[in-house]
């Protein structure tokens, strides 16, 4: 065969392999979603949302406490991460070229890559050890620290989408930086900032590892943030590791709910970002 013929065949094979790679990645995605829906959706019922876990051997019961626990943990994390993350993001967007900003940006990216279990140990040392008690607060602190870098980076990126003309107009009218930021730029970017918070929430809602030794778990109803608290993820983990079929069913139902939550959040965020980009295109 001629040299150029061989090159064409190599090219065709390589292109086909790239398409195969896409299929190879989508296959597990389809499989996971299929089983989560098949096993999870059928195990889901009203009691799952409203009832407490039943002791071993008694069928039925639900994860009401874990659902509420997850919501409380997300709330605690957001209370901590949103102000810090947003203001940090504002700083980076306002003074993008300073040396300090690039160091902070780098730190945020690196923090984003720190394993969540390591962040969990940090929260354990910071909150659990001094008072010698696992608590929802400790879990919230761990999740909050995981949330910060995501909020920082998305806030910065979306603030930068605000047309420079708006900022310049505000400054030309004699507004101070702070005034320009809080009355003109942030309101213009508010949908974007909310999107960033959604993205960050989607990330932490599915976290298990950092909660294992901070929020621990709780088989009872508890909304006391100084006590251990249940969460969907840890509950699914506990049930999956148990030998009981009924608990396995519950674990799948919990997984279904988790996937629904994180997928919905990320789809909303995705649509919002696309809308924003379209809106701000010159």
């Amino acid at each position, binding site marked *: 065969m001629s040299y150029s013929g061989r090159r064409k065949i190599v090219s065709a094979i390589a292109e086909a392999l790239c398409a195969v790679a*896409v299929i190879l990645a989508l296959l597990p995605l389809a499989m996971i979603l299929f089983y989560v829906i098949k096993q999870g959706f059928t195990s889901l019922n009203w009691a799952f949302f409203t009832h407490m876990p039943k002791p071993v051997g008694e069928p039925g019961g639900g994860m009401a406490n874990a659902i509420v626990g997850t919501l409380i943990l997300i709330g605690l994390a957001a209370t901590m991460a949103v102000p810090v993350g947003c203001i940090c993001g504002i700083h980076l967007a306002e003074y993008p070229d300073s040396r300090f900003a690039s160091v902070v940006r780098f730190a945020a990216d690196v923090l984003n890559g720190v394993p969540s279990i390591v962040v969990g140990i940090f929260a354990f040392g910071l909150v659990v050890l001094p008072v010698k008690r696992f608590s929802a607060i400790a879990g919230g602190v761990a999740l909050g620290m995981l949330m910060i870098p995501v909020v920082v980076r998305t806030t910065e990126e979306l603030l930068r989408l605000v047309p420079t003309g708006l900022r310049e107009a505000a400054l030309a009218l004699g507004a101070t*930086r702070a005034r320009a930021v809080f009355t003109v730029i942030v309101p213009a970017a508010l949908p974007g900032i909310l999107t960033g918070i959604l993205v960050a929430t989607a990330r932490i809602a599915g976290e298990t590892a950092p909660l294992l030794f901070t929020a621990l778990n709780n088989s009872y109803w508890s909304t006391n943030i100084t006590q251990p608290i249940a969460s969907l993820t840890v509950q699914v983990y506990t049930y999956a590791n148990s030998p009981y079929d009924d608990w396995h069913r519950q674990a799948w139902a919990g997984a279904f709910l*988790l996937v629904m939550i994180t997928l919905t959040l990320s789809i909303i965020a995705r649509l919002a970002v696309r809308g924003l980009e379209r809106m701000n295109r010159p």
Partner: protein
Amino acid sequence: MHRSADDRLFRMTTGIFAALVLLLVVGIGFELWRQSLLSIEKFGFKFWTGRVWDPVSGEFGALPFIWGTLYSSLLALLLSTPIALGIAIYISELSPRMLRQPLSYMTELLAAIPSIVYGLWGVFILTPIVRKLELLTPAALRKFPLFSGPPLGVGMGTAAIILSIMVVPFTSSVAREILKNVPIAQREAAYALGATRWEAIKVAMGYGKTGIIGAVMLGLGRALGETIAVTMVIGNNPQISLSLFAPQYTMAAVIANEFTEAADELYLHALIEIGLLLFIITIIVNALSRLFIWSTKRRLVNIISIPPVVEEEKAA
């Protein structure tokens, strides 16, 4: 005068919040070091080379966990890198324009699925499949150390498969972005010299090489620190083995499993020291990865800021 004072105050106040992020990274390192002092002082370097992990007699050697983490991540990268780069190439160079958005979104959905769901799927669906495959392995192959040991289903191989699936979206999305930023002129030049499509793609890949290495390292960072899914399928047995069938253990998994059981302080400090090492490794891997990606992007963006003007002139 008044206004500039106001602006300085604004810069300072927001700067303090920004500094908190820096402080957090330093704080994590300091706290982990402080909380593992007992173990660092008692075992020193032997901690990293010891093979015995016996909490009852107070002997702690972390080598099996370090091995498990490095080996599982390496195997995962071997599987995920070709797939992730294939996806990046397909989406940015080959696919019909219409499919681009949906495909990139679907592959990125893999990153949105929680680790615990991967774990659950791994335990109940993937493990039985892997076990069947292990049973089918011909006896001739099983003489090799890579396939030795009883076919349990749980073990290094299953963990590597799960990890590779989880890592793909991180590598592919960054690699895709790098490819998108490689100037079109690079490919056109290759075509002009008579290159085939694949050869032109190779030129583009070579042009963004540093960034693509960064993308792979970003995936590596994820694989090293992944906890729950791996804990559920790797078998949690501290042994050093090349075998894909063998149940092994990782650094993150031992922390997840034993942290709440650590009754005495030395045990706790030993576990936190493993966390400290994991922190240091992932910081280095992530920092390098970001530097590679940033420097490539900066170089590419600077270059393509010139051609569009030229093209516009041509069009006019």
